[in-house]
């Protein structure tokens, strides 16, 4: 049994939080995340969700409240983006270091300056190495399903790390699609209440005194980081297993990556988030023209699914990596990660580095066509025109 409704990405987040029966939500409003917390506070006020809502004085305070609540054993959710996520930065490392399974929705929005309300991935990329898991989604249905999955992934004994579910700001957060909303009792079968075990979890209990968040001398700090690294690697299997369990109950699966038309593809576009949906449409058009092209969606960005990526690109001559973020002085984050994945592999396609969709600029089917054309040229000649290709850059303004 389920309900089909036309809802936005933000509403899908809130529905998933309701269905996950969280205990504590603490957040501070920031566009385009604001409707998420508005919907959740409505659910709580209407008695549809029995949870404590803590309106914080800032995102720093919100994450602090989440850490405290998670450390006493609550199932905790928050949402933010952009400057809000940057303000949380310091505490994001604390949440990961204390191994607290907090779930956060990030409605990806650029970081100031220039200030912009609109989408790129620069905010979440700033948290890339904090220890948080990061899943990037492309549809409202995937938003809802992934938030529910995220609690189960984060709370797994083999993971115990916080997790970000990243949805492109406005493009996904404010776009309405038909979404299959599962029944609460079905979600309960998939996601039972969170029961932390004091033997494994950072769990504060007045009857069993414990100090958390203190100092750690050089003799031990590296070992805690190693354990965190191990947990991220283990999370790959957990994400796959949770996805399979979800598919058995609800019939939808997403994987660590999604390889669309990649099997015989000579040119594969690699991207995260909503660019993937646009690229799939373009691939259909180009396939009709007989071009061997495909799209590889990186859904799990942290942990980075090395084996799944290598398997998907095993026939590719050229990878066109489309980044919605910039790494100044070198290129772009996703490009660097793909390069690190393929550099020691037996099969090494040529990698092309594209920067697109910065500050909310649309990435249109025409842009994707341009990317495929450039990649096709490289596939034929073996030549790379530029280390970094800026898609849609207005050269009359900046020269070059």
């Amino acid at each position: 049994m389920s309900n089909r409704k036309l809802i936005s990405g933000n509403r899908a987040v809130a529905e998933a939080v309701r269905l996950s029966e969280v205990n504590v939500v603490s957040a501070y409003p920031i566009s385009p995340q604001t409707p998420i917390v508005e919907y959740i506070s409505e659910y709580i006020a209407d008695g549809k969700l029995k949870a404590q809502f803590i309106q914080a004085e800032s995102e720093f305070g919100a994450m602090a409240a989440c850490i405290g609540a998670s450390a006493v054993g609550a199932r905790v959710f928050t949402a933010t983006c952009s400057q809000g996520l940057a303000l949380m930065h310091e505490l994001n490392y604390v949440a990961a270091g204390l191994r607290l399974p907090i779930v956060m929705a990030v409605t990806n929005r650029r970081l100031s300056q220039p200030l912009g309300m609109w989408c790129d991935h620069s905010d979440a990329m700033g948290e890339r190495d904090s220890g948080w898991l990061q899943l990037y989604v492309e549809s409202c249905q995937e938003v809802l399903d992934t938030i529910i999955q995220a609690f189960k992934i984060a709370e797994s004994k083999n993971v115990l790390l916080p997790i970000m579910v990243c949805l492109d700001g406005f493009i996904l957060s404010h776009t309405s699609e038909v979404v299959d909303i599962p029944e609460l009792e079905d979600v309960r079968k998939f996601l039972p209440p969170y029961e932390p075990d004091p033997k494994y979890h950072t769990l504060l209990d007045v009857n069993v005194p414990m100090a958390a968040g203190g100092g750690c001398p050089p003799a031990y700090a590296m070992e805690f980081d190693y354990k965190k690294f191990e947990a991220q690697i283990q999370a790959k299997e957990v994400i796959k297993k949770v996805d399979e369990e979800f598919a058995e109950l609800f019939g939808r699966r997403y994987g660590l990556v999604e390889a669309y038309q990649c099997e015989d593809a000579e040119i594969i576009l690699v991207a995260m988030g909503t660019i993937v949906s646009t690229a799939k449409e373009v691939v259909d058009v180009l396939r009709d023209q007989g071009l061997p092209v495909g799209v590889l969606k990186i859904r799990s960005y942290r942990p980075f699914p090395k084996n799944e990526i290598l398997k998907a690109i095993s026939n590719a001559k050229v990878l066109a990596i489309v980044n919605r973020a910039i790494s100044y002085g070198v290129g772009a984050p996703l490009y660097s990660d793909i390069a690190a994945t393929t550099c020691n592999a037996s099969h090494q396609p040529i990698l092309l580095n594209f920067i697109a969709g910065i500050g909310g600029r649309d990435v249109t089917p025409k842009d994707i066509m341009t990317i495929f054309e450039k990649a096709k040229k490289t596939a034929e000649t073996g030549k790379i025109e530029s280390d970094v290709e800026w898609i849609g850059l207005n050269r009359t303004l900046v020269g070059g």
Partner: protein
Amino acid sequence: MSKPYWTKENFPISPTIRNPGGSLAFKAGMWRMMRPVIDPNKCTRCGICETFCPDMAISKLNDGSFNINLDYCKGCGICANECPVKAIQMVKEGRE
């Protein structure tokens, strides 16, 4: 070197201290390189050293004189610096 706090058997998931003892359990006297020694003939028993000691390692005895608990004294020398009659000398550890 004190014995390791975390071992293979009790290494936790996060840097948490599961049997906290506070500063009483962790004797910081081993850090000390200089030891304060009170000259009872010069001491006027004003108690300024007790007030200033950051580790509360100095306490007043029944006869009004002061005792320095060397389990906790880190040898910072604040007491010697504050003593108005210079009754406290800092001497290198291992010498009388």
